């Protein structure tokens, strides 16, 4: 990927959604996206629903594929993974793909990547003369929490604390999750206790028809839970409203 051709994508950012009194968020999902699945996109929709039901605004979302220097076996090239992310998000009205990490010549720490997003968004806001502070929390699954608290692991304790206190952390509960209470206790029993107020747990429950119906009824998104033409049809015919 060519650094000189890189441009921060902003075509799907919804600035008109910003309300000064309300917290506004940008959701960034980091990962290898090797390949991107419906579940990746689905988890962003779930987190967006989570914020919306708390009366907060989500201005936009990004998939940020890691560069190949990240040591994972069978990692396809940046070009292929980034293109697949483009294809996977093409039908989304708010999720974009940021290829900045792909253009780096060395492995990028999550803190640095989040700062990149913060800088890009802040300079956009400045240009548009919008004064609201946009939050960009780190989104991760339970597995990342486990790796963070693993002694002598991949994460550096100080950096983790610095990152969470600056950006906040959203833990997404996936398949067979620890009950939220247990996860909270786990967090409190480790060094993460210092930043526990900055950590939120978002439940992304099993994805069934029942769930789809209850989402539609609540006017929340069921995209990538159902195929697109099905969603269009439900909308057009106003099904499951009552």
């Amino acid at each position, binding site marked *: 990927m060519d650094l000189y051709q890189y441009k921060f994508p902003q075509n799907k950012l919804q600035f008109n959604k910003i309300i000064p009194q309300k917290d506004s968020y940008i959701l960034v999902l980091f990962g290898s*996206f090797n*390949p991107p699945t419906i579940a990746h996109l689905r988890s962003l929709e779930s987190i967006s629903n989570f914020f919306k039901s708390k009366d907060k605004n989500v201005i936009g979302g990004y998939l940020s594929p890691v560069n190949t220097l990240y040591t994972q076996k069978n990692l396809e090239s940046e070009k292929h993974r980034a*293109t*697949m992310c483009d294809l996977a998000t093409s039908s989304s009205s708010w999720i974009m793909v940021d290829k900045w990490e792909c253009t780096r010549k060395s492995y990028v720490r999550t803190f640095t990547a989040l700062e990149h997003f913060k800088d890009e968004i802040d300079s956009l806001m400045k240009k548009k003369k919008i004064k609201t502070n946009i939050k960009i929390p780190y989104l991760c699954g339970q597995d990342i929490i486990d790796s963070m608290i693993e002694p002598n692991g991949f994460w550096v304790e100080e950096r983790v604390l610095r990152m969470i206190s600056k950006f906040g952390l959203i833990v997404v509960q996936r*398949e067979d999750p620890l009950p939220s209470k247990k996860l909270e206790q786990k967090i409190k029993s480790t060094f993460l206790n210092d930043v526990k107020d900055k950590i939120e747990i978002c439940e992304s429950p099993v994805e069934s*028809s029942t769930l*789809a119906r209850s989402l539609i009824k609540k006017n929340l998104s069921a995209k990538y839970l159902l*195929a697109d033409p099905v969603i269009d049809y439900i909308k057009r015919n106003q099904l499951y409203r009552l």
Partner: protein
Amino acid sequence: MQNLTKENYIFPKQKLQLKKIEKDKINRVLIFCGSFNPPTIGHLRVLEDIANHFSLLDQNIIGGYISPVNQKYKKKDLTVGDYRIEMCDLATKSSSWIMLDPWEALQDEYIRTKISLEHFQKEIDTILEKEKIEEKVKVSLVCGSDVIESMIAPDTFWIKEQVIELTKKFNIICGLRDTTADNLKEKISKSYLEPVQEYIHIIKTSPMSISSTMVRNLANKKLSFKYFVLDPVMDYILKNQLYI
């Protein structure tokens, strides 16, 4: 799909792959019975998983049907019967082998599953006869674990003799996650279905949280990973021969 009635109904066969039928092999048509209210990517995914399972056992899958249950079935929230037919049609559109059969839903009354399966067997047999194909095609019932649970529930509304007959004749295939699969097998072995348990296939399928590793493994084995990733992504993987 507009103005579809019991009277103008025609058995859908456009996606049946009759040329796949082989002598000395088990040839199956999968019938997925359920509410499909609405049909999810997970439903379609289960059928793809089951087809993968049988192709690894060197059996042929000739086609698949989604058969939405009749509205008269005593279950809340089935009021959108006609919409379910339309949605199932849309959901199966991009599949090369899964069709919608609205027969069950179009009847005036609730249809017992055995009757529905006999309808399929009759229709398939008629086609085979017309095409002068002598091999047999086995109609198999695909269902969620909830259906099996309801069959063996103490206050079941199923007719036990019918269930046993149905199981022997058509087999039951149920796709489930690891732990629940083992639980269900044990429950069946302790129920009246014990004598016919060999006809019930509990297949361990992928959990609905879809992982990239799983997709790569499938692509590598040249098995289907449709509905795990979006169609344009799948096309891209195939075109560029990724993960092989």
